[in-house]
C-alpha cells in the first residue's frame, strides 16, 4: 500500500503531473499579467502548454561538436531533481514525504537544475553557451548569499520558539510555527527577509531583469542556443516548474499557517498564493525594469538583498 501511495505522490500529486500543470499555468499567468501591464491582450493562459507540445513535435538536432549523452541527459536530470524537490515542500500541513530533506538540502537540490543547464550548455560546445554558462554561474553566486541568510534567519526564528533555542532546518516545524503564531510575514522582524526573498525569486527562476544567462538579444538564449525539440521542451518545463517551486517555497516559508484542514482547499490556497507571489515578484519586475548588466547583478545582490537579510538576521539574533 505504501508503494502505491509513494507512486501516486511521485507521479501524480505533488510530483510530475501536478507540478508540470501548475508550473505551466503559473508561467502562463506571468506572461498574461506582463502583457496586460503593457496594455496588450497577451497570450492565453495555456500558451505554455502549446509551446511545450509544439516543441515536443519539433525535430531534435545534436550538433557535431556536442558530447551527445551529456547534451541529451542534462535536461532530464534537471527535471527529475526539480520534481523531487516538489515532493518535500509542505502545503499547509500536508507534506508528501516529510522526513527526507530540510531547507539546506533544498537549497542544494535547487542548484542541480541550474548545474544541469550549465553542463548541458557546456556540452553543446557553442561559444554563446560558454558565455551563457559563465553568466549563469555568476548569477548563482550572487543570489546564493542572500538566500542562505534568509533561510538561516527563519531557521533561527522558528528554532528559538519551538526547538528550545537551538536552530531548526525542518520545513514541517516552520509550518507548525506559523500554525501557532500566525504567518511569518506578520512578524515585523522578518519583513526585510521576506522582501529579500521576493527579490531572489526572479533571479533564481531567470526572469527578465536578471536573466543575464539566457539573454536572447545579447547571447542568443545562452546555454539553450543549441537545443531544439524535446530537450528544449524539457528545459522550458524546468523553467516553469522552478517558478512554481520557488513561489510555493516562499508561500510555505512566509504565508502558510493552519490552513483550512481540507486537502483540496489547502492545495488551491497554496497555488493561488503562489500565483499572487508570481504576479507580485516576477511579473511586476519583468514589466518595469530592463535587463541588468552582468556585474550589476552581482553588485545588486551582494548589497541590497544581503543587507535586508542581514538586518532581519541580526534582529532575530537579538530575540525580536
Amino acid at each position, binding site marked *: 500500500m505504501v508503494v502505491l501511495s509513494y507512486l501516486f505522490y511521485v507521479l501524480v500529486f505533488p510530483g510530475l503531473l501536478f507540478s508540470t500543470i501548475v508550473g505551466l499555468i503559473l508561467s502562463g499567468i506571468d506572461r498574461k499579467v506582463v502583457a496586460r501591464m503593457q496594455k496588450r491582450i497577451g497570450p492565453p493562459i495555456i500558451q505554455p502548454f502549446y509551446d511545450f507540445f509544439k516543441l515536443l513535435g519539433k525535430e531534435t538536432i545534436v550538433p557535431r561538436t556536442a558530447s551527445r549523452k551529456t547534451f541529451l541527459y542534462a535536461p532530464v536530470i534537471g527535471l527529475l531533481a526539480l520534481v523531487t524537490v516538489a515532493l518535500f515542500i509542505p502545503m499547509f500541513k500536508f507534506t508528501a514525504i516529510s522526513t527526507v530533506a530540510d531547507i539546506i538540502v533544498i537549497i542544494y537540490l535547487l542548484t542541480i537544475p541550474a548545474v544541469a543547464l550549465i553542463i548541458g550548455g557546456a556540452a553543446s560546445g557553442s561559444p554563446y553557451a560558454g558565455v551563457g554558462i559563465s553568466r549563469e554561474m555568476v548569477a548563482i553566486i550572487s543570489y*546564493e548569499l542572500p538566500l542562505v541568510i534568509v533561510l538561516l534567519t527563519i531557521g533561527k526564528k522558528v528554532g528559538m520558539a519551538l526547538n528550545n533555542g537551538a536552530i531548526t532546518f525542518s520545513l514541517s516545524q516552520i509550518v507548525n510555527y506559523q500554525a501557532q503564531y500566525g504567518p511569518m510575514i506578520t512578524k515585523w522582524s522578518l519583513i526585510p527577509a521576506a522582501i529579500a526573498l521576493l527579490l531572489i525569486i526572479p533571479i533564481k527562476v531567470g526572469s527578465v531583469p536578471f536573466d543575464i544567462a539566457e539573454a536572447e538579444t545579447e547571447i542568443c538564449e545562452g546555454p539553450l542556443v543549441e537545443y531544439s525539440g524535446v530537450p528544449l521542451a524539457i528545459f522550458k518545463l524546468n523553467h516553469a516548474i522552478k517558478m512554481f517551486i520557488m513561489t510555493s517555497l516562499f508561500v510555505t516559508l512566509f504565508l502558510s499557517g493552519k490552513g483550512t484542514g481540507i486537502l483540496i482547499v489547502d492545495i488551491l490556497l497554496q497555488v493561488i498564493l503562489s500565483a499572487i507571489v508570481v504576479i507580485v515578484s516576477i511579473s511586476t519586475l519583468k514589466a518595469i525594469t530592463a535587463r541588468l548588466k552582468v556585474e550589476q547583478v552581482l553588485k545588486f545582490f551582494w548589497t541590497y538583498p544581503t543587507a535586508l537579510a542581514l538586518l532581519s538576521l541580526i534582529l532575530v539574533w537579538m530575540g525580536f
Partner: protein
Amino acid sequence: MQHYPILSIVTLFLGAFLTVIFGSKNETVRKFIALVASSISLILVLMLIKPVMIENNVIQYWMGNWRPIHDWAIGIGLEVDSLGLFFGIIAVVTIFLSIVFSFRYTEKDSETDKYYVLFLMLSGSVLGLVFTGDLFNMFVMIEIMTFAAVGLTAFRNYQEGALEAALKYLVLGSIGSSLVLAGTITIYSQVHTLNMAQISALLFNNLTPSTLFAFALLLAGYSLKAFVVPFHPAAPDAYMSAPSSISMAFSGMVNKAGVYAIIRLVYVLYHAMSFKSIQLLLIIIGTITMFVGVTMALAQNDFKRLLAFHSISQIGYVITAVGVSTALGLTAGLYHALNHTLFKGLLFLTAGAVFYATGTTDLNKLGGLAKKMPQTAAVFLIGAFSISGLPPFNGFVSKWLVYQATYQANLAPVTIVALLVSVMTLASFIKVAQSIFFGQMPKEFENVKEVPLSMRIPMWIMAILCVLTGIFPNFVTKYLISPAVSAALNVGKYIDIMMGNGYAEKILGKPVEIPAVDYVLAGYWNPVAWLVLFALLLLAVTIVAVAGGFNTASLPVDGDDSKYEVFFGGEANEYSHVKGNDLFWGLKYDLRHYFGFMHDAHSGIINDYALWAIFTTTIFIVYIFLLVP
C-alpha cells in the same frame, strides 16, 4: 594483532630501501616491490579496523619493549587509537591508489626508481606520524615527510617552476620543522618526557607560560604542515609542479597528517578545547583559509594549481569544523577530511590523466576533451559534483554536517561564509569543466586517446567510493567517524592504556570525565529515500520518452552539411572556445580590488612567504599569551 602498526610502517620503509638496492635496473622489479609494500601495509591497516574501531580497544606498542618504569615513560611508544587509525586508513588507501596510478603515469619519466624510493619514504613517514605515541618521533616523521615531499616536487625538474617550488617548500618546511622542534623541546623542559600520553596527563591543569609558548609554537608548526592560509603559499607551487599521483598523495595524506597533528595537539595533549579563545582561534583560521583558498582558486588558469588552492580551502572546512569543539563539529571535520581525500584524489588523478594524454594542464590551451576521453570526463564530473557538494555525492553530507555544527554553535557568519565558499567551489569546477572537457577542441588535440586501463581503475575506485560515502552517511559515521571522535574526546583512556590504568586518576586526583559522543541534528537528510524517488521518476520519464519515440539512438547521426554545425550567427564554424580566463568576468570585475591584492600577496618571492609564516607565528604566540590563561 599487536605488531600490525609497526609492521605496516616498516614494510613501507623496507620497500623504499629494497627499491634502491634491486629496483634501479629494471622497471618491473621496481613496480613489483612498490605494489607489494603498499598492498601489505594496506592489508595490515585494514585488519586493524576490527579490533580498534569496532571493539574500541587501543593498541600500545613499546619500541624495544622499554616499558614505563615506576610511572615514567622512557622508551618510544606507538599508540594506535581510532583517531590515529582513521587517518591511517585514509593514508593507506591513498598510497595504494597512487602507486597503481603511477605505474603507467610515470613511464615517460626517467629515473623512476628515485620516484618510488621517495614515494615509499613519504608514505612510511605519514603512517609513522599517524601511529606514533611519542612527540619527538612525530617531529622526525614530519621531517622525513617534508624531505620526501621536496624531493618529489622537484622530480620533474625540466618542468617550469618545479625547482623553485621545491626550494620554497623546503624553506617553509624547515621553518615549520624548527617551530615544531622548538615546541617539542619546550614541552620537554617542563615535563621531562616525550611520551604523548604522559605529557597530556601532566599538562592537565598546569599551563605555565613555557607550556603555552610551546603550544603556540607547535600549533604554528603543525598548521604550516597542514598549509593553513597564512602559511599556504608553498603548497600551490608544490602541488602544481609535482607529478599528479604525488600531488594526489600530497592533498590526500600530507595535509591530512598536519590536520591530525593539530587535532592530537589541541584535543589530546593540551585539552585546550575547554578554552573559548582556542576554539575561536581555530575557527578564525579555518574561515580565512576557506575563503582565501577558494577565491584564489577562482582566479587560476592552471588545472592543478586550481586544485591545490581547493585543497587549502577544503582543509579550511576541516579546521573550522574541528574548531567547533562539539561532538558534531568533530564528526563533521573528520567526515569532511575523509571525503576530501576521496574527491580531491579523484580530481588530481583526472588532472594527471589530462596531463598524460595532452601534455598540458593549462586551462587556456585545452578544450572539448570529453569526446575523446569520455571516461575521464565522467569521472571528473563525479569528482566535481562531490567537491561542490551536490546532494547524492559525498561532499554534500559532510558540508551539511559542517553547516549544522557551526550554526548550532551560534556562529552564523561562519556558516554563511561556508555556504558561499561551497558555491564558489562549484563555480571554479564549472570553469574547469567548460575549459577542459566541454566546448570546442583545439586542432592539436585531434588524436588524443583515452588513458590506459591501469590509470582508469584507481579513478573508478575513487569515484565509486565518493558515491558510496555520499549515499550511506550513517553507515560511515557509525563504523569510522564516531569511534575516532570518541577517541579524540576521551583522553582518560588514551593515557591509561599507555601508562597503566589508574595513572590519569592518580595524577589528576579525580577521574577524567568521558564526554558523550551524541549530537542532535537540526534537520534531516535521507539520501536513500531521495534516490528511490529520483529513480521512480527516472523510470517514469524514460517510459514516457520511449513510448513517445524519443530515444537517443534514433537521433540521426550528424551528416556533413551545415545543419549540424554550431550556430555562430551564420558564420562558418571557426575555433572560438570560451575557456579559462574568459569565464566569470562579472565576478572578477566586481571583486577586482580583492583579486588584485590577493594576486600581489602571492608574490612568489621566498622572503615574503617566510615573512607571512613568521608574522603569523608571532600572532599565534601573542594571541595565546593574552587570551588563554
